[in-house]
């Protein structure tokens, strides 16, 4: 992770990172005028368009405003833009605290956050605490969509769904907080449906994105280009699997990917990953166990490569507890093997659907 060594003098910090969340101020930034002074506020020129463009690009948006929460939310509803914002922070506490809370709640690094405010004092206050936040003056609204930090490398079908997926997550988390009883009962209550099968052509962009974006639930961290993945999809010697998850609150999108190299004696799992969106859903072993079942039918052993990146211990545990034994180690690369004597059934709280 790159962080600037010294606090920047200008209002902009030298962010190398693509922006994942834009945090808006309200008065004289999102709208013209000051709400609590009784102004008949209107969205500033270009704001509506920017909200829509960033939303389609999968860049999340939130609010840090010193305002009356009830009045501001009512105005956002009236202006028809309330739905664009996740976890809006509208209160009288410091904006640095608000920005930090937003990043923490959405679970992203502060170096992927941008903060838009007309007041230099507020921008400085945020940058004083968090120099890695990209701070922008409100007059940059019109130019913002053209900046490279706001032009993600991947725009997939899922990008436009990202906000609604986070909103579904917000409702889910609230339900989980309210739930009393065994975890399994809660998971059952979600009515999850896990759909897995060979990657289709329309999955490949998302598959490429997953190899780049996923670090924690990733066994090797190998990244593959669109063309490489397309090659694996057509190859007789490879199996490229994609998994998606839905529940009663909505879809999580495509959240799992596995690449298997099919040898005559053994299959080797080169890559197995799950999006951290599904971290606590108890679905992590379904894709793996599906591969084990397929291999058993084909009469071959299963091997798996594992490369530690300090953050993917959960995948090491998944392999170790899934009956894999280390058979070789070259530097940091571990090769596991599974004799397929013990394969866990799919969990009872998920409806597993295997396609084509």
């Amino acid at each position: 992770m790159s962080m600037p060594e010294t606090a920047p003098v200008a209002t902009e910090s030298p962010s190398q990172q693509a922006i994942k969340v834009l945090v808006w101020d309200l008065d004289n930034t999102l709208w013209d005028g000051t709400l609590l002074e009784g102004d008949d506020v209107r969205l500033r020129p270009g704001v509506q368009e920017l909200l829509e463009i960033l939303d389609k690009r999968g860049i999340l948006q939130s609010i840090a405003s010193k305002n009356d929460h009830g009045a501001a939310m009512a105005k956002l509803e009236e202006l028809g833009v309330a739905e664009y914002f996740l976890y809006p922070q509208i209160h009288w506490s410091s904006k640095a605290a608000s920005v930090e809370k937003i990043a923490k709640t959405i679970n992203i690094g502060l170096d992927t956050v941008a903060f838009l405010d007309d007041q230099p004092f507020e921008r400085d206050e945020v940058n004083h605490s968090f120099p890695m936040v990209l701070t922008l003056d409100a007059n940059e609204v019109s130019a913002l969509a053209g900046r490279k930090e706001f032009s993600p490398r991947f725009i997939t079908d899922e990008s436009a769904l990202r906000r609604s997926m986070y909103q579904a997550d917000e409702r889910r988390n609230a339900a989980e907080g309210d739930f009393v009883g065994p975890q399994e009962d809660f998971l059952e209550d979600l009515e999850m449906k896990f759909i897995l099968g060979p990657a289709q052509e329309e999955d490949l962009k998302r598959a490429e994105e997953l190899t780049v974006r996923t670090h924690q639930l990733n066994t090797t961290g190998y990244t593959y280009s669109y063309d490489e993945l397309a090659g694996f999809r057509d190859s007789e010697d490879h199996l490229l699997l994609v998994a998606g998850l839905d529940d009663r609150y909505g879809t999580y999108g495509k959240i799992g990917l596995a690449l298997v190299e099919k040898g005559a004696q053994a299959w080797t799992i080169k890559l197995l990953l799950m999006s951290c969106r599904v971290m606590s859903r108890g679905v992590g072993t379904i894709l793996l166990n599906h591969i084990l079942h397929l291999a058993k039918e084909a009469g071959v052993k299963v091997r798996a490569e594992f490369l530690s990146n300090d953050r993917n211990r959960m995948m090491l545990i998944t392999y170790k507890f899934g009956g894999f034994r280390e058979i070789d180690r070259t530097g940091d690369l571990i090769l596991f093997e599974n004799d397929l004597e013990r394969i866990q059934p799919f969990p009872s709280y998920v409806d597993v659907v295997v396609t084509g």
Partner: protein
Amino acid sequence: MATKKEKIKEFLAKFFRNHVLADDEDIFALGFVNSLLAMQLVGFVEKEFGITIEDDDLDFENFRTVNNIEALVGRKEAARVSA
């Protein structure tokens, strides 16, 4: 004060219902162990008993039964005292 076994059982009880776990019962054979439980179990053991589970300890044999988990904790505690 709750014994190690009681603490381990209390933790595991959160993951399933209508089943009283015996000390030597194979929790993997019962189909209770999903990736989530595995991760939380390792985290629980580390935090509750103040030990570090090394990669080499992550053998499912060590976590297969309440007795085995208790034995693992005992070994790690002994190693910590002598170290």
